[in-house]
């Protein structure tokens, strides 16, 4: 390849990349760097307040067991929700990509995401109607089963997981679908005609080829769920306090942006760290 061609390639790459990344730079990265700067201050640098540089906000995380406890609780929640979403969503995507044919596939594809064009807050309160003791689910189960049951899922960790899995399931269904649909059926046929068993085909052929889709979906679920606070607060009752809650408190209940910012960047670092740790394992699993 000649140098000039590489240069035109570079220019093309730049032209394709710059709209998205310049946009992100102006609207997200620069504002977030301001927040990152605040996280090293003792107070916000406006409104005539005294401030100086400090590491106290990061130290506060290390010195306060509550923050670490809650972060761990949030990470666990993220892992559970992600795992459940993948386990539930992948078979669904498989059916959509490999079993359903023709026009109905387009329609189903759209129907999977449509619930997310409703407001998340309204959706959470709607879950409350379904899950509470005398709510829709409890009443239905009680009416169907001959004996007396009291099913009350509201205000429990289960309710949080149900609400979150519901909110994020479409990500993994659609991204898995995108990868599964690209697998040539004749490949699967060939494997089958060579006598491979279903489990072998799934493990050696389908999962590795669908891996990029599953991983993309899992990442899009795990990353935001760790910082979530709305579903836990409304559905989780007394136990609904998570790491996202204490971040939000610094902006809403008290005026301590520096600490809120520091807690957010610790969250970001931990999330990225987990993704980095997971990536070799994922790569090995899919080879």
């Amino acid at each position, binding site marked *: 390849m000649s140098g000039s061609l590489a240069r035109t390639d570079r220019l093309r790459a730049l032209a394709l990349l710059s709209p998205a990344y310049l946009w992100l730079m102006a609207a997200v990265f620069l504002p977030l760097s301001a927040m990152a700067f605040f996280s090293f201050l003792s107070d916000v640098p406006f409104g005539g307040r005294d401030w100086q540089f400090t590491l106290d906000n990061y130290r506060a995380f290390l010195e306060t067991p509550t923050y670490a406890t809650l972060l761990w609780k949030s990470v666990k929640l993220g892992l559970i929700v992600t795992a459940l979403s993948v386990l539930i969503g992948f078979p669904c995507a498989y059916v959509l990509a490999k079993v359903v044919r023709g026009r109905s596939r387009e329609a189903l594809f759209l129907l999977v995401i449509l619930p997310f064009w409703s407001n998340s807050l309204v959706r959470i309160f709607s879950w409350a109607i379904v899950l509470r003791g005398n709510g829709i689910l409890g009443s239905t189960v009680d009416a169907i089963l001959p004996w007396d049951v009291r099913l009350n899922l509201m205000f429990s960790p289960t309710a949080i997981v149900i609400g979150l899995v519901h909110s994020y399931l479409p990500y993994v269904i659609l991204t898995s679908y995108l990868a599964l649909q690209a697998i040539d059926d004749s490949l699967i046929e060939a494997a089958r005609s060579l006598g491979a068993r279903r489990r072998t085909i799934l493990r050696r052929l389908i999962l590795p080829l669908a891996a990029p889709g599953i991983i993309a979906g899992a990442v899009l679920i795990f990353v935001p769920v760790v910082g979530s606070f709305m579903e836990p607060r409304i559905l989780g009752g*007394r136990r609904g306090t998570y790491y996202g809650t204490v971040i939000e*408190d610094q902006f809403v*209940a008290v005026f301590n942006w520096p600490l809120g910012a520091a807690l957010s960047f610790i969250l970001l670092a931990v999330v990225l760290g987990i993704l980095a740790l997971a990536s070799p394992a994922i790569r090995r699993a899919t080879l």
Partner: protein
Amino acid sequence: MKRFLLTSALVMASQAAAADEIRVLNWQGYGTDLDWAIAAFTEKTGHTVVHEYFTSEQEMLTKLRTNPGAYDVVLINAAYTAQAQSEGLIAPIDSSKIGNFADLDPALVGNEDLNPAGALHGVPWTWGLTSIAVNTADFPELPTSLSVLWDPALKGRVSIRDDGLEAVQFAAMATGQNLNQITDLEAVKARLTELMPQVTTFWSSENDWNQFMAAGDFVVATYWSGSAARSIANGLPITFIVPEEGALGWLDGLSIPASSTKMDAAHAFIDWMVDPEFYVRWDTEGAPATSNTKAAAALPETSFNRAVLGDPAVVAKVQFMKPVSDADRETYLKLWQDLKAAQ
């Protein structure tokens, strides 16, 4: 003739200047944005009203700081007025522009929190109590003490607001302390620790409260008097109780941002907001208590605000909330987060 022309020109000029659009920053659904009230104000003065809403006091301050000139009237809880004034966010009130000013309760007008730096910076508008409300159906006999929250028989049927400051203040009251001068934080913490297993969920908005109470998720919970009045007006079978230990009192004022360019229209709007005609109608839909003595006297005997908050025995038990320092707020939040995280 010349003089007549001059006066008419002046009248016309003042009317032209009067056709302002004022921008009000408030909680949504908190009186200033009632359709009929705005329509009546526009008819009276020619000014139109646009609203913007906030969801917490901290965000209200953030909005004021970052949007100079954007607002003309802002609702500020008296506990935050001094902070807004010290940051130069709000201007002193010109009481001569408020026709109803003479009828306002002098005790509220003179409230030191509304008068930072020796000048009135917020017109007292509404006040109310934070206390407890119970589902009447579950309480044949109404409780008279805050200790109902700790009643073992009600385990899992209690709720308090998800707010560190309020939780600490309630526990302070329950331990017999002055809620503006909490000396024994350990006692507060111990009392709240006992409360936690009682709680089914925390509430954070009237929306949660009404739905959870309507569904029977809890039967006794802390609540705001103005909200209780509205929930009762909307048919929830609840009773608002001021227990023997007392109740938290709060006072909301209407202020004018220092950067407002429509001071006259802003004062006119505040004047309408403290007008008895406005308040008496608002009260029928469920409102907090008014600062206007004439408006309060004009309420029907059965009105919640007259029957409950107008009772001198109740008023005697109220401890009004004073401003809380940032450091104290953070201490209370910390305590609250620790307790919640331990669940």
